[in-house]
Structure formats: C-alpha cells, structure tokens
C-alpha cells in the first residue's frame, strides 16, 4: 500500500492519469480503431513541446515572475537560420545545427543581460527581446521556402515499430534533465533559488550565475526545438513557434510544477504534453469545431491551475 500512496502523492501522476483517460475516451468512441496510431502521433508531436517545456520549467522554478516569453520567436529564428544555412544539403547539417545552437545561446545571453543590466522583471525583458528576435527572423527569412536536408527530415520522422526515434531520444534527454534538476549542484541551486532567493544567496549559492545558466538553457532548448521542428514539418515558417508560448507554460503547470517556483519535476512535462495532444485528438474525433477545441483547451488549463493553485509563494 505504501507504494500506491507514494505514487499517488507524486504531483506528476495526474497528467498521466489525464492522458490515459483522454486516450481511453477516444478509443472507446472509435471502437478501437487507431488506438496505437494515436499514441505514435502523440509521441511525435509531444516531443517538441517537451523540449521547450523543460527549458521553461527551469526558468519557472527560479521563482515568481520568472517566465521566458521569447521561446516562440527563438524557435522561429533558429528554424529559419538553420534552414537557410543548410540549404537542404546533408553536408551542412552540422553547420546548421551549430548556427541554430549559437542563435539560442545569443538569445539567452541577451535576455539575461536585459534582466541584469536594466533591472527589469524577466517577463518584460523576454517580451522586449522577443520583439527584436522575431523581427530578425522575419527580415532574414522573408519568402523562405527551403526544404530541410534529407537526413534531418528522415531522422525527425523515423519510426521503429510505431515508436518515433526522436521521441526515444527526447525521453532519454528528459531522464538526463531530471537528474540535472534533482541530483546536481546546478539543479539543487535552481530549486533553492526558487524557494527563497535571499536564503539561497546567503547560503553561498551564486544566484546570478545560476540564473544566467537557466535563461541560456531555456533559449538553447527553444533553438533546438526550432531546428528539429523545421526538419519534422518540411521547412521553417515564421509562425512555427507561436503555439509553443502557451504550450510550454501549460505543460509545466499541468505536469505538477509549482508556478510559485522551487518545486518541479520533469516526468510531468511528458505526461502533460501527451495529454494536450491527445485532448485535441479526442475533440477532433468527436467532431468538435475549431472554436470548441480552443474553448475546451483554455478551460482545461484554467481548471487544472485552479485545482493545483492556491499554494502561496513560500515566505
């Protein structure tokens, strides 16, 4: 029994319960057809949400007011930049990836600089920088229709027995990130800062260095998402990052991470990302119109935060 209780008390378990229920409802409605295909599709699409979700989670963990609003524009910039540099050639794959990572790193450094030098709340800093980043992407990528290199397209869509390879890679990556969060000096520092920044500073944690690393990590992960997403969807587009602003925050919250900071988990992000995708699939299967789908998505996010919320920042 203690095992059961231990599992039920994990904050991330509910996202997986929700994921299973939504999947069950879909499968019951269709009478069992497409039960496994739906999971394959969910794994493929959830992958991208998970990568940005992890970055956003580290940022949110550092405490109230910390959110990265520049993720969508970073995705667009990285995707556009990589596609243009690679020009569809496999030989340029490493160069393209390098450029994409570099763009993410630059965005992260810029975001942190704004936060530190201008002493402004991170939301305003990442918001202002997202204006500049998106403009750069738009100006650079006007009329861009370049196919991704063959190898990248194959890699991002490859499957073995219905299991997307990329999803497996990102599951392993998530395990690594979970270890980073819970078992390393960096991760423990992030959690400590989120619980009480003053106490963390007094305890000798180099708060500013950790925050710098966190904003850079988030931007680099957004850049990786842009790179992979452009390969997966046959090219980059300027609004390809748009839906990931809400998605990145939603999966963190639904996954059981505290918005007040200092209390986080990685598995919940996978559960929540799968749940979000399966939810839309379910509504599609039921024949709901676009308007209804949007309304229900919104209501579910508000409901989850209403149930999970109520915990005041620890002070």
């Amino acid at each position, binding site marked *: 029994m203690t095992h059961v209780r231990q599992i039920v008390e994990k904050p991330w378990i509910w996202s997986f319960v929700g994921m299973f229920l939504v999947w069950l409802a879909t499968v019951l409605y269709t009478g069992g057809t497409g039960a496994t295909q739906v999971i394959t599709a969910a794994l493929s699409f959830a992958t991208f949400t998970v990568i940005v979700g992890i970055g956003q989670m580290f940022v949110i963990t550092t405490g109230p007011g910390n959110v990265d609003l520049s993720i969508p524009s970073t995705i667009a910039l990285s995707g556009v930049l990589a596609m243009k540099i690679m020009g569809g050639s496999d030989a340029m794959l490493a160069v393209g990836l390098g450029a994409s990572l570099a763009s993410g790193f630059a965005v992260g450094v810029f975001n942190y600089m704004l936060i530190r030098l201008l002493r402004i709340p991170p939301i305003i800093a990442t918001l202002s920088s997202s204006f500049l980043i998106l403009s750069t992407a738009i100006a650079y990528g006007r009329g861009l229709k370049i196919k991704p290199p063959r190898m990248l397209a194959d890699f991002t869509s490859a499957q073995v027995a219905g299991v997307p390879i990329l999803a497996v890679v990102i599951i392993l990556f998530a395990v690594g990130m979970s270890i980073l969060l819970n078992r390393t000096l960096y991760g423990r520092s992030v959690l400590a800062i989120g619980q009480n920044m003053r106490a963390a500073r007094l305890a000798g944690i180099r708060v500013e260095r950790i925050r710098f690393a966190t904003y850079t990590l988030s931007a680099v992960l957004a850049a990786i998402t842009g790179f992979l997403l452009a390969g997966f969807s046959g090219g980059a587009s300027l609004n390809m990052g748009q839906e990931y602003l809400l998605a990145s925050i939603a999966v963190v919250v639904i996954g059981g991470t505290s918005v007040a900071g200092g209390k986080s988990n990685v598995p919940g992000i996978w559960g929540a990302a799968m749940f979000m995708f399966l939810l839309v699939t379910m509504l599609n299967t039921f024949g709901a*119109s676009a*308007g209804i789908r949007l309304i229900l998505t919104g209501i579910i996010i508000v409901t989850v935060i209403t149930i999970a919320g*109520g915990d005041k920042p620890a002070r």
Partner: protein
Amino acid sequence: MIMLAYLTSPKFLRSALPGASFAFLLLAIFYVQPNAMSYFGLNMMLQYSVPIALATIAQMFILTVNDLDLSIGAFVGLTASIGATLLADTPLLGVLALAGAVAGYALLGALIHWRNLPSIVVTLGMSFVWLGIAVLILPTPGGTAPGWVKSIMALQLPFVPFPIVAALVIGIVVHLFLMTSSFGVVLRGAGGNARAVGRAGWSLLRIKVLMYAAAGLFGVLSGLSLIGLTSAADAHIADRYTLYAIAGVILGGGEFVGGRVSPIGAVIGALTLTLTGSFLIFLKISPDWQIGAQGAVLIIVLALRALIKRREA
C-alpha cells in the same frame, strides 16, 4: 539654480521620460517627413492609437493589482467580433453579449483572488477561450461595424485631430478616477501593500473584481473603436494587442509591481508605440522591422529609466 536642480532631479526625469520619448519620435518624423506635420498627417499616423490606448489602459488596471493579463489581445478580438456581428445585427443581443464578456472578466478576477492563482497562467488559458468564442461567432473574417461606431471614429474635430483628443480624454478620465479620487488610492494601495489595505477593512476580493471588470470594459471599448476604423472584424484582429498593451504601460512609466502606474503615461506610451510604426514607413524601412523597432524603443526607454534609477539610489 533651484530650477535646474529640479529639472535634473531623478524624480522629474522619471515623470518626463514618457512625454519626452513621444516628443522625440514625433520631431524625428517631422524632420524626415515635413508633410506629416499637418492635421491629416497626424490623423493618419495616430488613428490606430485609440484602440491601442484603450487596451493599454485595460492592461494597466490589471498591473495596478500586481497581475498581468496575457489575454487582452484575444479579448479585444472577441469584442471586435461581437461588435461586427451581434451588435450590428441585433443591438440588444450585442449589448448583452458585451456585458457578459465584461462579467466574465470580473469573474476571472474573483477566481484569481479566491484561489490565489498566477494571473499569467489563468489569462493565457483564457486567451484560448476568448479566441474560441470569437471563432464560433465569426468563423471567417468579415461582418460590419455598426454605423454609429464608424461615425464616432471618423469624427472630424476642428484644429486638433480626433485621435489626439480621444487619447487625452481617455487618459484624463482614468487619471481623475485612479490617481485623484480617494477610492483610487485604495485601489493602487492594493497593488502596493495588499495586506495593509485588507487590514484597513477594504475587501481585496471586491478590489480585484472591480479592476478586472474595468479592464474588461476598456477591452470592449478597444474592440469597438478598432472595428470603427477597420469596419470589418476577424477573431485574430488584435492578437498583437497583448504585447502592445504591456509595452504601452511600461513605456508610459508604469512599474511592474507595487501599484505604481500612470494612466496619462500609459496613453502616451500607446501613442509612442503607434508612432514607431509610422516612423519606419517614413524612413522607408521594411515593415518587417516594425515589431523589432517597437522592441528597441521599449528597451531604450527601459535603459534610460535604469540610468535614472541608479542616480536615485
């Protein structure tokens, strides 16, 4: 000498910054394009500042109580869609729908206060709800704005263009309510020190509901004034307004926390943001850079403010 000391004091510089940035941008435009220095030129450049200023004021009400609204753009899209369909076809139903939308905003304030929720997540979720309802009401761009809305927005005033007068009126009315009335002090106090205001016997729930309702009301006005200019609507018509509204408040000297806001500043911020777009057109710079330039203006103003703050310390 005392005068000079006052003029260079951080306090004065701080309050003069929004107006100075606006004036600087306006002079730069007149320098590049002297033709803009006319009744029609100003009218053209600033007409869209009316809906943006109203959305900015809506955001300012939310910021006053230390929250942030990431759904105001979607909400303005919804009220624009209602305005161009229900309000034009069946006015009574339209008015009821808009009142319902404002009530929805008030309820949101109550929910956020009751469960002590992070406004960012709640409003981000609600932006989907507003957008979804707007798509149901108006699946494809279209509809027509009611005639009276269009005629208000097309008003030709003597000497001073309508957008400038409208912006001034909006700023002054909200200023009188929020900055000079004793109740306004309580409202801002709720952002500065909620516990103290609560101990003094004010209902924090009521304050939050009121501020959200006020934001909803200005969201409605923003949507209506927008379709008065475009005459048709689209569920996505105001998607960018969420960002504009935050930027407008900040450009106008508003602080992010602590109830330190300025209605007149917010309106000037909205005007500055609108001018940035026109400035690029006059410089013949591609509209690709429009949001980038707005971001740059935001960062420059924030940097100037950081410099002033350093002197204050």
